């Protein structure tokens, strides 16, 4: 309770500050005088040296004075020169003083995306975002031209989600380009894209995508409610949103999905999920998120269903192995030695005979060492990679065993734990904590603690919710249709229904008769 009050206070301070900053702009209208407007803009963008002002006078009628304002580097200069400045200078269309803005917009400037604006705050935001704003002398309005043109990264295959088959496109940091990747694959007007702005200072564009007719409107309303509550000054990545809208804030498990692949987003949209795009990040959020999605990969749908069912089972097995192996090993080796077959027992006993540390401490150290190696692998500059693998493999593995610092079975346990954890990259965070918890419970209470820990984990998983949808349980009664895309991936001709949270459940014709 106290903590919550404290947080609210802090939030309030931030709000007030931003409020003060924006207040002078917020409800200010434009003046009729060009000079006055320019003066206001210049004052607003004081010390912003990339702001460019360009005064233009019409060749035929030198009473027509304009000024265009834009930020250098975020506009496409060719468009500004050819489609704005050139027509404005050369046009012989008479501009009456009655509604000069409309005439300029409709008859002179050759730009597809134009908009009128009279609020200073809107204009400031547009300029910052790459638009060009035209002020007309004598008009209390300005025209905003879409001249966004900045360099973006090329579309490439995402490194975090490699595939064997299927499309190789990946999202980039540009919101519009990302949306175009979706748009051109789904041609039905059912695909809705709603913009909104997040972050008081960054004013980042976000886009909510969903399939009207498939999505459950209540889930959508819930998402919007939660997004409305977000009150933060910056959103730089979708993870900001994830943490702000999630159901159980302290759970290490994911309650939102993320992907860098357009095909994955479309697949999820078509199952009734909602995608949240954010400008500036290639990662797209999808909600609601089911627990099985942790084990899914887009390859599952592009490869033969026998193969993908097997690899999905492997991933589930990998999850259980990676959290249980160290705890299980300690429970057996330190508490319940009679569980082992004699030969295994003897060889483990022999390799442990002259090792200085107790088995549980050894397990603890080895797992931390593996995590250090993994983290190093992510953070280090790529050109020293070889040094890491030599140190990691030879020194910590072989040499430690030969020097009798670590027992050989422990190395195998740590290696298996590490490798299996790489099978399920989406669960890195929970896996580390659960594994440690099971290890600690096992080292104090043997199998009893181990089983208790596993039970607690399962209860927690079953309790997880994503936007109010239970992540692990289904609609209450188990139906075969609902488990066809879980532990295995049933062939496409058997997956007749969508997941239960979608409004329109039938994916295929004939589905009504075939609910086996």
């Amino acid at each position: 309770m106290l903590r919550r009050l404290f947080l609210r206070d802090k939030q309030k301070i931030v709000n007030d500050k931003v409020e003060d900053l924006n207040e002078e702009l917020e409800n200010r209208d434009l003046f009729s005088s060009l000079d006055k407007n320019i003066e206001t803009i210049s004052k607003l963008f004081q010390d912003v040296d990339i702001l460019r002002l360009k005064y233009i006078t019409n060749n035929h009628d030198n009473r027509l004075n304009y000024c265009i304002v834009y930020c250098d580097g975020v506009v496409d200069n060719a468009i500004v020169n050819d489609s704005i400045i050139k027509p404005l200078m050369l046009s012989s269309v008479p501009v009456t003083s009655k509604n000069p803005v409309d005439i300029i917009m409709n008859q002179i400037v050759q730009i597809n995306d134009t908009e009128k604006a009279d609020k200073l705050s809107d204009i400031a935001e547009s300029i910052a975002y790459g638009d060009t704003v035209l002020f007309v002398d004598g008009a209390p309005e300005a025209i905003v031209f879409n001249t966004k043109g900045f360099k973006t990264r090329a579309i490439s295959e995402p490194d975090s989600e490699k595939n064997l088959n299927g499309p190789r496109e990946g999202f980039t940091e540009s919101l519009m380009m990302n949306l175009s990747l979706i748009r051109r694959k789904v041609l039905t007007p059912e695909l809705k894209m709603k913009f909104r702005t997040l972050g008081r200072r960054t004013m980042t564009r976000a886009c909510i995508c969903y399939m009207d007719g498939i999505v459950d409107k209540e889930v959508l309303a819930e998402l919007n409610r939660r997004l409305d509550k977000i009150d933060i000054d910056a959103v730089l990545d979708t993870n900001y949103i994830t943490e702000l809208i999630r159901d159980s804030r302290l759970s290490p498990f994911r309650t939102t999905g993320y992907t860098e692949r357009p095909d994955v987003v479309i697949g999820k949209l078509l199952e009734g999920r909602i995608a949240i795009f954010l400008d500036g990040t290639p990662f797209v959020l999808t909600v609601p998120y089911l627990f099985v999605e942790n084990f899914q990969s887009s390859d599952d749908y592009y490869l033969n269903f026998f193969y993908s069912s097997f690899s999905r089972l492997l991933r589930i097995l990998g999850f259980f192995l990676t959290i249980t192996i160290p705890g299980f090993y300690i429970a057996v080796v330190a508490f319940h030695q009679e569980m082992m077959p004699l030969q295994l027992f003897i060889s483990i006993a022999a390799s442990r005979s002259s090792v200085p540390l107790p088995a549980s401490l050894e397990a603890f150290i080895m797992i931390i060492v593996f995590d250090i190696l993994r983290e190093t692998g992510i953070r280090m500059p790529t050109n020293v990679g070889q040094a890491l693998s030599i140190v990691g493999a030879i020194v910590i593995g072989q040499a430690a065993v030969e020097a009798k610092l670590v027992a050989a079975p422990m190395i195998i346990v740590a290696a298996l734990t590490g490798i299996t954890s790489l099978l399920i990259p989406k669960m890195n965070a929970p896996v580390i904590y659960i594994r440690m918890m099971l290890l600690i419970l096992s080292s104090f209470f043997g199998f009893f603690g181990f089983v208790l820990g596993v039970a607690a984990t399962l209860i927690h998983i079953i309790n997880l919710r994503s936007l109010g949808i239970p992540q692990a349980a289904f609609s209450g009664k188990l139906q075969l249709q609902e488990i066809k895309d879980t532990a295995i991936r049933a062939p496409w001709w058997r997956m007749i229904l969508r997941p239960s949270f979608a409004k329109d459940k039938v994916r295929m014709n004939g589905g009504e008769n075939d609910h086996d």
Partner: protein
Amino acid sequence: MIKKTACLLLIILQIFLLSGCWNYRGLNEMSVVIGIAVDKAPDSGNYQLSFEITDISTPIKDKGVQSKIVESEGKTVFDAVRNAKKRIHNKLYFGQTQLVVFSNEIAHSEDFSGVIDWFLRDGELRETICVVISQEKTAREIISSKGIGQSIVSNEIRQIVETDEDATASTSAVEFYQVFNILRAEGKSLTLPEIHNVVNNDETVIEVNGTAVFKENKLVGYLTSDESKSFLFAIDEIKGGVLTVSSEGDDRDDISLEISKNSTKRSFDFKDDKINVSIHTDTTVFLDEAMVHNNALDDKQTAALEDAAAAKLENDITLVIQRVQSEYGSDIFGFGNMIYKKDFRLWNQLKDTWDEQFIALEVDVSSDVHIVNTGEIEKS
């Protein structure tokens, strides 16, 4: 919130209450006992125990795991177990013990159910440990001999005894809990595997050598390996082994039949205060060796062979029953137990005089042998 915290505390409390008496125990803090030999000191009457423990101090890479013997003496079995701690720094660990060898002297002279009490009562030992009797002077000689297939001889003995029924049928494996059950069962006597030392390739090794016969709580005698086979036929426990027959009807056996499947039916009837037991064996065999017929056998020869084998089997089983009746008077076949299970009222009448009844029992043995396969030699 309070409810949640309370629930969590309750769950955590469970750990302390329910985790029992087990304890963290490092593998390097224990001496792993694989086999135990129980002897009796001739002069003092103390129990002398020898433990075969794994020797994990020498690297196992080169020679595999070696074993060492620890000896100790005490007034009772457990006293002797604890006294071993005086000689070795680690406590003995019995969770992986595979074998207990009793000397025949102890089995002869003492109440066997008393000697095995600790093994069943102690929490660490398993109930499925293999029990054997040493035919040597002491039990220690058995576990201090050398294993051929494994360096830990106790484990090898256990595996020999356990797989014996399937391959050679020379003894009948009994686990500790079964010893306890049989000693308390109605109309049934205990048998245990019998081990002795032999010389093999200039080294002393062990060999299974038939079955030890108990009467009530004491050892009374032995069955040889061949007699054990007939004994296994009689109690329907045979699962493999070789049946040798003579083709000519003379003393020299020259045909080997591999036992593939056997079912033994036993029944009794009670007439004129006399019990008649009939045993019928129905055996399926493969012809695996025919020293005299180097060719494929025809139907007539096969039929003759089947008859000869059946006759030999009948004779063997009858002989072993008669020998046990006359020499040991111990119902190791469980005939009394059969009556107890089938006709409880009759058993109550016979119970008190069963020892005499058993000796006078009329046993009628009949056998059927079917040769289903004559091997890979075909008519040319």
